[in-house]
């Protein structure tokens, strides 16, 4: 997996590159600002770009805007956005405009290295990785008549991981459950929430998020 890291904080960028290298990920380029990101992605054509939301020169949403441009030029490029803060609405807006291969994580998630690498691989493979805090906010929302109350605690756990973008296999590993059990839970969730079964994992994520956000 060939990865480009765009992050203006030198210390953080070095730490991230070290962790990735340690895990056998091939970091083919580094960028300190939006301009360098554009140059290095066009030159290296990586599988994934890890991009900080805020970057020079404007220190606003330079990172995500550049990532969108690059995605438009290179549709096969996957992007994992890292942010210092979670803005749920912003994350969902970004995701809804993205065909596939998109991740939005809090910077702190990098510290849970194995989960982070798992998310990175998922995004690289065209999947999705949404920060647990985003999912937490969406699931924590009280509704007038909340269908989530019909779910068992275990089912809610599974629903959350599904929404984050985990595959069935990933959910099995995270919850130490057999794949059969996980499948049963998923079917039950879809029935209880009256959701149509999704043809693939990416569309499953979108359907679940759309349901949670509605």
């Amino acid at each position, binding site marked *: 997996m060939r990865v480009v890291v765009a992050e203006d904080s030198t210390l953080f960028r070095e730490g991230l590159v070290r*962790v990735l290298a340690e895990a056998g990920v091939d970091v083919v380029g580094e960028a300190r600002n939006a301009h360098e990101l554009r140059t290095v992605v066009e030159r290296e054509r990586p599988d994934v770009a890890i991009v900080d939301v805020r970057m020079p020169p404007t220190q606003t949403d330079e990172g995500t805007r550049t990532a969108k441009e690059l995605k438009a030029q290179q549709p096969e490029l996957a992007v994992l956005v890292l942010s210092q803060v979670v*803005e749920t*609405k912003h994350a969902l807006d970004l995701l809804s405009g993205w065909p596939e291969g998109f991740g939005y994580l809090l910077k702190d998630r990098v*510290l849970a290295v194995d989960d982070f690498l798992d998310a990175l691989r998922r995004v690289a493979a065209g999947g999705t990785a949404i920060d647990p805090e985003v999912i937490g906010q969406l699931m924590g929302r009280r509704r007038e008549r909340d269908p989530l109350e019909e779910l068992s605690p275990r089912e809610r756990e599974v629903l959350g991981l599904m929404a984050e973008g985990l595959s069935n296999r990933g959910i099995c590993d995270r919850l130490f459950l057999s794949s059969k059990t996980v499948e049963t839970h998923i079917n039950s969730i879809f029935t209880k929430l009256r959701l149509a079964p999704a043809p693939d994992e990416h569309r499953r994520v979108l359907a679940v998020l759309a349901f949670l956000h509605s």
Partner: protein
Amino acid sequence: MNRLGALALLVVGAALGVAAYRAQINALSSPHAVAQVAIGWAYLLAGLVAWARRPANRMGPLLVLTGLALLARQLRYSDDPFLFTMFFILGDIGYALVALSALAYPFGRVTDRAERVLVVAGVTTVLLIPSSIAFFYGGTASLSGFGRLSRDSLINVSANPRLVELLQKSEIVLFFGVLATVFVVLIGRRFWRATPRMRRILAPLVLAAVAFGLRAIFECVFTFVDRPFAADYVFWWQFVALFALPLALVGGLLRAHWVRAGVGDLVLELEHARPHELRDALARSLGDPTLELAFWLPERGTYADSAGRKVELPENGARAVTYLDHDGEPLAAIVHDPSLLEEPKFVRAAGAAARLALENAQLQAEMRAQLAQVKESRVRIVAAADEERKRIERDLHDGAQQRLAALALQLRAAQRRMDAHEAEADPAVEALLEATVAELQAANEELRELVRGVYPAVLTEEGLATALESLVLRNPFPVDLDVLDGRLPARLEATAYFVTCEALANVMKHARASKASVCISRHNGILTVEIEDDGVGGARPLENSGLSGLFDRVEALGGQFRVDSPAGEGTRILAEIPCES
């Protein structure tokens, strides 16, 4: 002028009138003779009235002189060769004086250069040409304007009837044709240039223009063509205009007297006038609807209007300024029509009459100016506070937060490296690193919450709707959100955000509500922020520092903040802030 003098002039005028009538009766019809005398007397009487009432104004003597000249002119019809010769030569000065009194109105002086040239040209014409005629008139040929009568010129040197006719016609063309037209044009120019107040004062001059216009038609047309039936009408119309002119002029002069009497009324009126009515009262009594008042603000060292807004006093000639002071300290300035400068004492008198009211108004203007200053500084304080919050947010985000995240990551990298490369890792070091990373992560988590409260970055970047949606998503109870699309000025977005944020925090802490709704809309330049809940109510905005802070913030932006919270019926918080769309 004393009464005796006036009486003497009256007697002279009466005698001259009678003499003129008797002299004319041979040459002109009786009504014409009466009319000529009436015109002379009208100028004489009008002049005497003006002289008595406005002794400082030269209009009085000028009108008297005009009247006497017009009466004396008619003596040219006398049988006596001396009177004929003298007043044939000097008589038409009477018409030049009519033009002069019109041009000298209302201040008794001709100041305009073109007007002065016209007066000199007119006097020269009416003196030069008749005296030339007298040299060549033998008394046998008929004279234009004298009917069939003939007289003897005492200074005739060589009678030449054709030359006399030519000279008479040239005088008519020059004086009543060319110069009278120029006169009418100059009167028109005066109106064109006059300020509205001056135009009303100049109104009588319309009569002068009409009189000379008609006279020009009468003389020029009917001297060269046979007189059709209209000649009489035109003669009588110009006669009426000529007769009415001195009365209108003196009326106009006296009107200024009435204006002066208005100062007396002003004193009475001001007793009941409020400061904002002061300008209107002064404008009325000075007869200048364009009048403006400016009050001296000693603290700021500038003049300001009654609302306390700074005013620049005009320095060019289009407007005049009269400064009023009190005990040597500037008090106010009256900005008025320059024509009032002819009566500076009068403007000062009005100012003095209004002094007490002006002092009140000055205090009020000063107070308003201070209030406006305070309001402006409140807006600036809010803006500065927002800027400061944004700066702190940026500094923490780019500084401390970044460093904490980077530090934790470096430690994690070290830990992983140790795991991978050292077969026998020290479990104590391992645990220490793990704990440190967790601690750093917790610190960053706390910092993140703090930064969000300071100023959410999403508000700057994505606007109010997105920021509020994010806020509501973190809220533990359901909130109906209805927020207008599009961006607003930063201080309004921040205010709407913080109002909503604080209100929802209050709902969570005190209201025991099951749900809340937030509605932010804009109508007719007012941004409305409304937060309602179905909780227990009874919120007291003044005891709640969060709510009272919001109250100050909304008021600072010129808005209104209201909390309705009857016990047991939920709470409704409403902020209305003006916003230019």
